[in-house]
């Protein structure tokens, strides 16, 4: 019942592993598929390998977790070798992160040129809140920047392009419209919120190695849902709704706001590595109880 389509590929459910979570290796992504995802996203690949920020990389708060990983990744060349040769029924999304449209174009070109990659889509992250040179720290989420980067990537890849936006940047509707005009095939509305900070009052210091980090988990769901709701009203391309999805009913809510698929990440912390399949089963049970037979009846239902 929760099966759906993802750029021409049939997938078993609309649950997508969000980038940055678990996706350091191909084996890790395969295991996440076995744990119930319909699609998986790699760690965001940058032109050169990155070690990421010094730890602590995560800290729990009373309302969600803060993280500042800092894009640890093997770099685009080793990354594509690691994830390439994907043959599973679940869709593979290659996430890329560049400093400007030139870097994004170069990354897209390499993704496109990789033989036997097996990826269904490429996702460009313009929304990391805690890595200098990238994402919201350099204003990648403004409509002008989104338009420029989207167009530059589209010129260099034939794969469907997902633009990942931030819930923390005002003007997300204009940014989504700019992505659509630039040729994006989908919007991923959602990344961690903020940046925020947690200070240890005994040590009188911010806990995260990078001092600040993005907030994720259940507390950010209302903001992600509102962003998806607004974007759905203003663009025609499909939306991945990401942010605070922890259970089947959260996914249903996100889809009613307008998402065709939902991104799940931090839920692994609260409910374990098999949370993806659990959310899918919970969705199915809810649909059955409430007389829905297709996800199509749910996406955007809040707008009718």
């Amino acid at each position, binding site marked *: 019942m929760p099966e759906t389509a993802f750029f021409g590929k049939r997938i078993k459910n609309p649950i997508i592993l969000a980038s940055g979570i678990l996706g*350091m290796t191909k*084996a890790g992504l395969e295991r996440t598929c076995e744990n119930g995802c319909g699609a998986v996203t790699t760690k965001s690949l940058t032109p050169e*390998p990155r070690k990421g920020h010094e730890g602590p990389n995560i800290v729990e708060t009373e309302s969600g977790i803060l993280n500042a990983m800092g894009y*640890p990744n093997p770099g685009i060349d*080793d990354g594509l070798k690691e994830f390439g040769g994907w043959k599973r029924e679940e869709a593979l999304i290659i996430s890329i992160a560049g400093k400007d449209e030139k870097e994004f174009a170069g990354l897209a070109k390499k993704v496109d040129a990789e033989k036997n990659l097996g990826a269904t889509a490429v996702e460009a992250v313009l929304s990391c809140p805690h890595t200098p040179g990238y994402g919201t720290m350099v204003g990648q989420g403004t409509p002008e920047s989104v338009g420029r980067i989207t167009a530059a990537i589209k010129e260099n890849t034939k794969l469907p392009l997902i633009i990942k936006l931030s819930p923390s940047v005002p003007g997300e509707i204009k940014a989504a419209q700019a992505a659509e005009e630039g040729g994006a095939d989908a919007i991923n509305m959602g990344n961690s919120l903020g940046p925020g900070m947690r200070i240890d009052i005994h040590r009188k210091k911010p806990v995260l190695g990078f001092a600040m980090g993005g907030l994720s988990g259940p507390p950010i769901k209302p903001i992600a849902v509102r962003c998806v709701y607004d974007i759905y009203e203003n663009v025609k391309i499909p939306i991945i709704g990401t942010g605070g999805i922890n259970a089947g009913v959260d996914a249903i809510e996100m889809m009613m706001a307008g998402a065709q698929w939902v991104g799940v*990440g931090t839920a692994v912390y609260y409910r374990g590595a098999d949370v993806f399949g659990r959310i899918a089963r919970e969705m199915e049970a809810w649909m059955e109880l409430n007389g829905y037979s297709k996800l199509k009846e749910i996406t955007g239902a809040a707008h009718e």
Partner: protein
Amino acid sequence: MNRYELLNPVYTKKVKKVIKENYRVKTIEIDHYIDALPGQFLMVWVPGVGERPMSIGNSAPLTISVANVGKVSSKICGLKEGDDISYRGPFGKPFLLPKTVRKVLCVGGGYGVVPMYFLAKTAKENRIEAYAVVGAKTAKDIIWEKQLFMVCKEVFVTTDDGSRGKKGTVMAEAEELIGKMDYVCCCGPEKMMEAVAKLCREKKVPCLVSIERYMKCGVGICGSCDINGKLCCLDGPVFSGEDALSLSEFGKCSRDATGRKTR
């Protein structure tokens, strides 16, 4: 309104005692008791410097042993009695022995001795006879030997250069002992654990090993400590010897902070 309870709070406690083990290893006893089991680890935080996973050497008092090998560990080694120390944990799957075990062999190579002491101590408390093999490069690299004597029936020492005990790897002693045991637990260099796990398979003695990988979050989110799709922080660090031998990267390669394969 009550404050929400955190799953993994950051603790800040006082250093109770600092013991110099050798030229570069210090043992730090912390004025704290946590419900930790042998094989589990802490993420120890040095504000403004970084965070590292550290094997737990004892739960009461909470104890870690730290080799001064980098910028975070050198700060931890510099701690004095009464200083603050911060950490989260305990994390990871522990060494758990079935109730039927009567004789366990604890094989520790290098710093791997630390959790082996905690295991042997716990075994003794549960009326299980513990035997230990301690392996090190040279005599001056041996740590926690005295502590092991307190909880083990016998302690065997090997050094690579023969400066203490039998010359050779831990296998110089473990080879004969394994067949006489009901269970073997092992922590140390991966090649050593691979050799122990293979011999245990041959002798049909169940075994557990503790696998180390570069670690970032410690709680199963980031995927940095991946070994063939398993996470050392959640699925491990303790794996059965059979599980470990089924992982193609075990004893062969590891990954650095960027996720690239090394070795």
